[in-house]
């Protein structure tokens, strides 16, 4: 198991290197001069030259990439000040260190992602299991139709609607906002409740349909029929045999989804004006804030790769056949 994890981690490092190189060369090869962007409106050739030197833009591209990558591990010194490891450079837009900004935004994104995941896992898997248990019956048909409707909704449509209805009309919930859990757990919860629910709507629908179909597939497996032939009750067979087998596809998709959410839920963050990584990414695109964008991209990619390794490790827990090979 340890060997397996080490091998996968090494593989992940290689993947991340490739991703970083691709993003780096893609961004710095664009025809807009980063130094010019950094320089602002009152720019004269002299200060442009200084900025170029300060940013290391006068060096060859490969050398810049090397300096960037080395900086992540060893830190760098810029003219504006030292940048301790992990150094992703300074934002062009705010002059703040990129890593610091990411750390600032991370709690919002993690809160949103984890809370949303809890909601859609509970609702989605619950509804899927119920539908599979009562397959072909009224409950199944009802849940299937509901999930079909849900999956066709859009966050930017439901979000404002939910606020208008639940906050302004009925005054049931608080206006969405992010309050750090450390300062007030109650406010943290109340402020994120609507974003969690809205974010989970589409996921819930997706997980309902997926868990229903994999469970029904598992219920048709030979070993499930064999378990019934042993006299085990329908419930035991359902939970001990069919459910176990349906976990693999669910865990796979969940790992990908959670990894992606940790990199920022752009639409949800924008809809509810929550200061998370998704918003940060969009803002830095609009500002052509290359260091920031690069940092967020690398962070998001790392999250996805990391969760993929986790998923593989979980496979081995679920399916003993994976353990040996």
């Amino acid at each position, binding site marked *: 198991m340890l*060997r397996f994890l*080490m*091998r996968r981690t*090494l593989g992940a490092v290689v993947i991340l290197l490739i991703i970083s190189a691709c993003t780096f060369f893609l961004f710095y090869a664009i025809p807009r001069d980063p130094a010019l962007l950094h320089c602002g409106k009152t720019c004269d050739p002299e200060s442009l030259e200084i900025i170029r030197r300060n940013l290391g833009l006068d060096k060859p591209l490969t050398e810049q990439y090397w300096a960037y990558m080395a900086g992540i591990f060893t830190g760098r010194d810029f003219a504006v000040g030292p940048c301790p490891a992990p150094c992703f450079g300074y934002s062009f837009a705010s002059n703040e260190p990129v890593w610091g900004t990411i750390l600032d935004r991370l709690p919002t994104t993690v809160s949103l992602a984890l809370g949303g995941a809890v909601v859609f896992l509970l609702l989605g898997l619950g509804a899927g299991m119920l539908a599979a248990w009562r397959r072909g019956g009224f409950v199944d048909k009802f849940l299937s139709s509901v999930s079909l409707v849900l999956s066709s909704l859009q966050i930017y449509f439901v979000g404002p609607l939910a606020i208008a209805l639940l906050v302004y009309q009925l005054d049931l919930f608080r206006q969405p906002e992010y309050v750090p859990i450390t300062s007030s757990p109650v406010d943290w919860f109340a402020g994120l409740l609507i974003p969690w629910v809205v974010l989970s709507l589409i996921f819930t629908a997706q997980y309902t349909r997926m868990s229903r179909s994999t469970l029904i597939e598992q219920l048709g497996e030979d070993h499930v029929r064999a378990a019934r032939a042993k006299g085990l009750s329908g419930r035991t067979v359902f939970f001990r045999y069919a459910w176990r087998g349906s976990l693999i596809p669910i865990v796979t998709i969940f790992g990908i989804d959670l990894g992606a959410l940790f990199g920022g839920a752009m639409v949800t963050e924008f809809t509810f004006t929550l200061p998370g990584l998704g918003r940060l990414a969009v803002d830095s695109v609009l500002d052509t804030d290359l260091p920031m964008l690069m940092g967020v991209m690398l962070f998001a990619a790392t999250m996805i790769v990391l969760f993929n390794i986790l998923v593989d490790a979980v496979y081995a827990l679920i399916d003993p056949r994976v353990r040996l090979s």
Partner: protein
Amino acid sequence: MTVETGAGPRPAASREGGEPLLTAEGLTKHFPIKGGFLFGRRVGTVRAVDGIDLTVHEGESLGLVGESGCGKSTTGRLLARLLEPSGGRITYRGRDITHASRTQLAPIRTEIQMIFQDPYSSLNPRQTVGTIIGGPMEINGIDPPGGRERRVRELLETVGLGAEHYNRFPHEFSGGQRQRIGIARALALDPKLIVADEPVSALDVSIQAQVVNLLRRVRREMGIAFVFIAHDLAVVRHFSQRVAVMYLGRIVETGDRDSIYANPRHPYTHALLSAVPRVRPEDGGRTRIRLTGDVPSPVDPPSGCRFRTRCWKAQEVCAEREPPLARLDGNREGHLTACHFPEDGPPGPPRPPGGDGGDGGDGAGRVKRAESD
């Protein structure tokens, strides 16, 4: 039925005068097992086929029998050059094709055809029967007199389907009919040799007999040589004049039909024959040989004779020295057996209990003899 073929048809059950068509010497196929840290290091080798000699004569049928994992299917694929051997030599009509490239193989591909076990997966579901059977002719640019379509319709009738099936799709046919389509496709190029890998194993009993009869007729009337791979000893006996018994990548015994079925010398051949359930038990032998345990892994085959771990006659020498595949005293010509302690006489009659000496291998390899009533 008249079908023109290049080679003159020859009578069944005679290989005298049949020229060697395909010869394999020391044929070997090892599959690497990749694994280990970082880069797929080779951590082991599956010795699927581990040095076998075979000759197929023109117009004759050579049967390859053995249990799963013995390497018979891999051998078939090597002989049809769908796989490249790891070692040894394959000669087709005097030409070395062991490592022949695609282009070098092109002319030979038309002469060696394959029939597969699963008629469901070996036919493209989106092609009509006409396209499937005519495909090989089109690819090889062969224009038979009267046109390809006429030839395909002829072939359909040859294999017992109607010419009107030309425009149908595979899913409209039953398993047996699909296997007939596969046979028609193999016949389309007038092959000299057909490698048939478990061609009837997936079929129901009544349909299996139809297809076996069809293959027999094809061989008899068109003079096509066959390598017939099957686990069913009775089917092989019915189809092949010569038989090779494989165990863990090696041939343990080979010879003409009568030698193998009436006078087998290798204990494994005895055990195989004895294990076949008889429709009329009273016709069969009264003594049964029951092997215990399973076939060992081809990754790490036993030293010396590979059968020794399940053999009731195994002695120390069996672990030390691999017996050569050779003609033993009392064997007919062409009947070769690889055994230090061969059996005598036909399978069946009671024999005194075998020696219990030798190291026990994994201990599971002993025999239980039961008197059946």
